[in-house]
Structure formats: C-alpha cells, structure tokens
C-alpha cells in the first residue's frame, strides 16, 4: 500500500485547552508491524481514532504514499481495518452472526461474504465457536473474534488498539503469533500497546508516545541501541555494601530489584572490569546487557518515569 505519513498531527477535544495529540509526526512503512508504545492516557487511542476517521477536527496531515488518507478512504472505503481496544461486537449475537453483520455492513455479500467469514474464522481459530453467543465466550476468544472482525475486508491498513488487553498468557501468545503472521503483502499495521514486551516481540518499528508527543521513533533495533554506556547486570547474589558504594560513586549505580543493577560505564573495558569485580566479590553475573536497552529503560531515560506509572 505504501507508507503512512503522519505530519504535525494535533488534536484537542472541544472545550479543552490541553492538546491530546501535539504535533505528532510518524513515518510508518508497509510490510511490517509498527508499534506505538506509551502509558495509559498518552494519546495512542486518540491517534488511532483520528486515523480511523472516528474523530474529526485534527490539524496536520495524514497521507498514504503522498495521497491524503481521506482521499484513499473515499476511493477504497474498506481499505482500513480497526481492531479496537473494546470487544466491539454484539454479545447477544453468535460469532457467525457478528461476522456476517460486520461483513455485510461493509458491503460484502453472497459467496464473497461466506468466503471471508470462513477465512477470518479460520485465521482466528474460532471455527469451533461460531454458533455460540459472543457474550458467552472467554476473554481470549472474544479478543480473537474482535481481531477476526477487523480482518473481514482484508484491509491494507490495520489499526490494532491494545488487542491483547485482559487475556490469559496462552491467548496472548496466540494473538501475537497471529498478528505477526499478518505482516507483509504491502500492509501497514499499527499496533498500540502499553506492554513493552509485546511491542519488542512483534514490532519492526516503534514510536514512544507520551502526553501527545512522539518521544522517539524508528526501527526497533536502532531505537534500542544504547550509546550511553548502560550496563545491566543480574547477579546471583546482591553486591557487598563496599562495592555497591564504590560503584554508586564511579558508575551511578542504581538498584532495579533484588540483585539487579544498572550502571553507566565509560567504556566496554570498564564494563568488563565491573563484571570481573562482581565475580570476584562472589556475585556471579546471571545476565548481562551492554550497549542495548529495553523499551522500559528507554522510556525511563526519556521521561524519568516508568512506563507503568
């Protein structure tokens, strides 16, 4: 489909002085999954709502391969699929009736509708519960139905707004695998979450958004590269007090949990020396990370807050 360009997008609700989106600029390539990470209230859902056409009145520009998104959607009304945060379907209808309804209301009918219903039901592995009322499904199955509905029209642009909220680990793993399999074929996929592990697991590109502003954006590997000499250690035992006091002075040591530490070392040599010193002190390293940070650390560096705050 091309590239989705969001330029200087701002939005504020009528009557509010605070911008929910404040000059958001993003480049989201097709063929991969682009993660939008941010704490609750960061503006992720608002951005999704603006992109999906649910909210009007935003300033800025949204274009797909240079063509305004509105124009693309007028030309191809069902080129965009939304999987909202809520399980947005009819609980009193069966899964099959829901799929037929959402397909029908988007213009699918006859053989094509039947084929698409079968296809998305197979993809989400809900064939066995098609005759069950949607309201009676487990949380995981509801999420799968929610995803299946979003795929009915084979959209070129798929917006997934926290699609794994409130599901058990097994269903989450299934959903993430399913979503991962959607990448490619020129499709743009925007995936919002406040679970950094999910974004790190399935996304190719990422943007961190907070208070309506993009703090960082790019390919995941690039974004996670760390040039600030961050050394993360998980040790078999806590550091002795003397060594901890020394590192606090020399390497700005921070305790991240029981026997878990982050240090700022000036060089790779200093990192090696620190690891050796820990070993000598009887605190054998169990896990070591240098030159790479995770999204939680990145967010903390950018905002001095935890992503989960």
């Amino acid at each position, binding site marked *: 489909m091309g590239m989705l360009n969001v330029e200087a997008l701002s939005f504020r*609700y*009528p*009557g509010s002085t605070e911008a929910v989106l404040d000059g958001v600029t993003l480049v989201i390539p097709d063929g991969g999954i682009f993660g939008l990470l941010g704490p609750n209230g960061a503006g992720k*859902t*608002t951005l999704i*709502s603006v992109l*999906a*056409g*649910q*909210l*009007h*009145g935003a300033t800025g520009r949204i274009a797909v391969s240079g063509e305004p998104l509105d124009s693309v*959607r007028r030309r191809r*009304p*069902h080129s*965009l699929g*939304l999987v*909202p*945060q*809520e*399980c*947005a*379907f*009819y*609980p*009193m*209808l069966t899964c099959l*009736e829901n799929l*037929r*309804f*959402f*397909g*029908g*209301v*988007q*213009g*699918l*009918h006859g053989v094509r509708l039947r084929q698409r219903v079968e296809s998305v039901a197979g993809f989400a592995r809900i064939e066995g519960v098609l005759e069950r009322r949607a309201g009676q499904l487990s949380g995981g199955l509801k999420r799968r139905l929610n995803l299946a*509905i979003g795929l009915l029209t084979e959209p070129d642009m798929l917006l997934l707004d926290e699609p794994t909220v409130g599901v058990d680990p097994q269903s989450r793993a299934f959903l993430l695998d399913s979503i991962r399999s959607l990448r490619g074929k020129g499709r743009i996929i925007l995936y919002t979450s406040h679970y950094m592990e999910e974004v790190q697991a399935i996304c190719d590109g990422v943007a961190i958004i907070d208070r309506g502003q993009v703090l960082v954006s790019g390919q995941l590997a690039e974004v996670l590269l760390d040039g600030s000499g961050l050394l993360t250690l998980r040790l078999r035992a806590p550091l002795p007090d003397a060594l901890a006091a020394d590192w606090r002075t020399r390497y700005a040591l921070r305790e991240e949990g029981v026997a878990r530490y982050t240090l700022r070392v000036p060089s790779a040599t200093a990192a090696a020396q620190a690891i050796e010193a820990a070993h000598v002190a009887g605190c054998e390293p169990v896990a070591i990370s240098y030159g790479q940070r995770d999204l939680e650390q990145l967010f903390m560096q950018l905002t001095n807050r935890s992503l989960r705050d």
Partner: protein
Amino acid sequence: MHRLLALWTKEWLALARDVHGLAVLFVMPAAFIAIMSLALSDVFKDESARQTDFAVLAADDSTLAERLARRLEGDGFRAAPAPVDEAAARAGARQGKPGLVLLVPREFERGLREPPDRTNPSQALTLLADPALPPAQLAVFQHRVLGMALGLRVSAAARIPGFAFEPGAFDLKRAATLSIEVVGNSRAGRPSSVQQNVPAWLIFGMFFVVMPISSLFIVERREGTIARLASQQVPFSLLLLGKVVPYFVINLGQVVLMLLAGRTLVPWLGGEMLALPARWDLLAAVAASTSLAAISWGLLVAVCARTMEQATVIGGVGNILAAAIGGIMVPRFVMADTMQAWVDLSPMAWALDGFHAVLLRQGDAADVAAPCLKLLLLAAVLLATALWSHRRRRMRNPAP
C-alpha cells in the same frame, strides 16, 4: 442495500433475543386493553360529572335556537355557539366540537301545537352525536331533549282555547320524533370501552419501542460497536435507518395484534367487541405516523441517554407522563376541564385523535390529516435532534 440489509438483520436478531423487551411491546398493551376495557366499562356506561358541549341549529331563526339551548343547558351540558349550517354542524360533531348538535326543523313550534305524529316533519328533531361520546351521556341528552319538547308541547297546548287532552298526548316518548345520528359512523355503532381502550393502549405500547431501541443502542455504544461502525465508514444516518424499519414492522405487528385482541380477547373475557374501521388505508396512515414518531422518540432517547438507567427513566417515565396527559390512561372526556387543556400537548393524544377518527368516527382523509402531519413533523424534529446530538457528542468523545 446490502449494508442496510445487514443492519436490519442484526436488529432483528438482537430483538429476537430480548424476550423481556418483546414481552413489554406485545403483552403489556394487550393486558392493558383487557384490564382497562373491563375496568372502565361502567365509566363509559354511566357518564356523570363532566361538561359536554352541545349546540342547537334551528332552521327557522336563531332566537329559537338560543331559547332551546337555554332550556337544554345545565347538569353537565354546556351550550356552544350554533353552527352556521347543517354541514358545519356535521363537521363539528365528527370532531366532537361540540359533541352534540340538535337540528330543529322548520315550524317546530307550530308542530308542537299539533298531536304527536311521526310523519309530521315539523316534529322531527335530529340529534347529531360525536361517536366518541359515551352512550350514557347521549341517552341523558336524548331524554333532556324529549323533556324540553314535552314542556314546550304542554305550554303550547295550554294556550289553545278548548284544548282537549287526548290519551298519550303528553307521553315523553312521543313529545317529538327524535332521531339520533352518530356522525361519520355508517354502522351507527356507538363507542364502547373497547373502542376507547384498544387505540389508547396500542399507542402506549407502540411508544414503548423506546425501551428496546435505547437499550440496544446503549449496548452498542458501550461495547464500542458504534465507534467501530464509524471507522468502517457506516454513516450514522444509515445506522439509524437500519433501526427504523425493524421497529416499524414491530409497531405494525402491534397494531394487528391489538386489533385482534379487541376482536377476540376482550369479548372472550366478557367485554364488547371492537368495531373495525371502514378505511384500512387511513388506519395504516395513522399507525405509520404514530410508529415513526415513536421510533424517532426512541432514537432520540437512545442517543441522549448515557446509561441504561437514564434510558429507562427518560423513555419509560416520559411515556407514562405522555400517556397520562394524552388521554391514554384516563380518557380525555373523564378529565376535568383544566386538565383537558393539556391533553393536546401529548403526541399520544395526537395519535389517539387519529385512531379515533378512523375507528370511532369512520372519518375520511381530512380527519386524519392533522394528527398524521403533527406526528410526522414530530418524528422529523426528533430524528434531526438525534442526529445533531450524536454529532455534537461525537466531537467530544471518540466513542460515540
């Protein structure tokens, strides 16, 4: 069209699974019809303390009409200005304004001096009656007219020198030839409790579509399906249209079933049988207008209410108030005069006027035009307000 079909199918399926909602729509009005037709049957038979307007139209001169009106006035009967001619009198009685018109033939006073004679045209009084007038009240007025005629006959006889009393000369029943014509009702059927109650509770039931419409809409909003449909570029107006047709069919189903209840259930329980209309097309027009007003009301409540509780209060209590004011729960003619001034504020009263014009008065298109137009106008205003309210809310909240 496929999109609309999908919306209709969804609405039907959702409705079919709302057993309680359907029960409210069908069982409630039927129960009210049965209960109230039986409970109020005596009220309709023994009409008492209320003011009924009547007019007298004398072919000879207006002073005679005024004199007769003064004699007839009192005890719940109030003289209204005389209509200009018989056509105006019929048109007025058809609409119950006034409910009774006494047509006095030429040389009526001279005829009173002659012995009672059914073939004497000067003794032939005609009483035009509003079909909605309770029969007991009509009977009271009928005797009042005969009493007045007898009084005039006695006075006239007393002034004739050498007048000889004949047996039966002053019999009340023979004081004048009084024919009663229930205007607009070719079958001369008088209104009964069931004919008042069937349309009344039918309208009440039709307006109760507000409950399923609003509850499903609130579920749709709460579950995020409306927002999802918006993202799928389903116009909100199409969404509303997808709701109108299924509920329209439901309302028409109510009409058929409630007429059947009036024909079968009420007589089976010991009440009177409903008289069916002569003009089914007019009944359909009134039912359709009522349905559109009721559905539009439901859509407005659905859009404005934020919670199920709000919808229940606004929709349910609103309906009950409209029914109380509009002559559904307490028939208009039973109400005090001051209360009657409020009746026409209720859309249910407009609908009731329309149904009465068809079912009671066997009226024509002109008789149902005003109520239908009022209801359709109301439907348009409510629908426009619902759309405006939705747009306004959507600007404020991504999940409309």
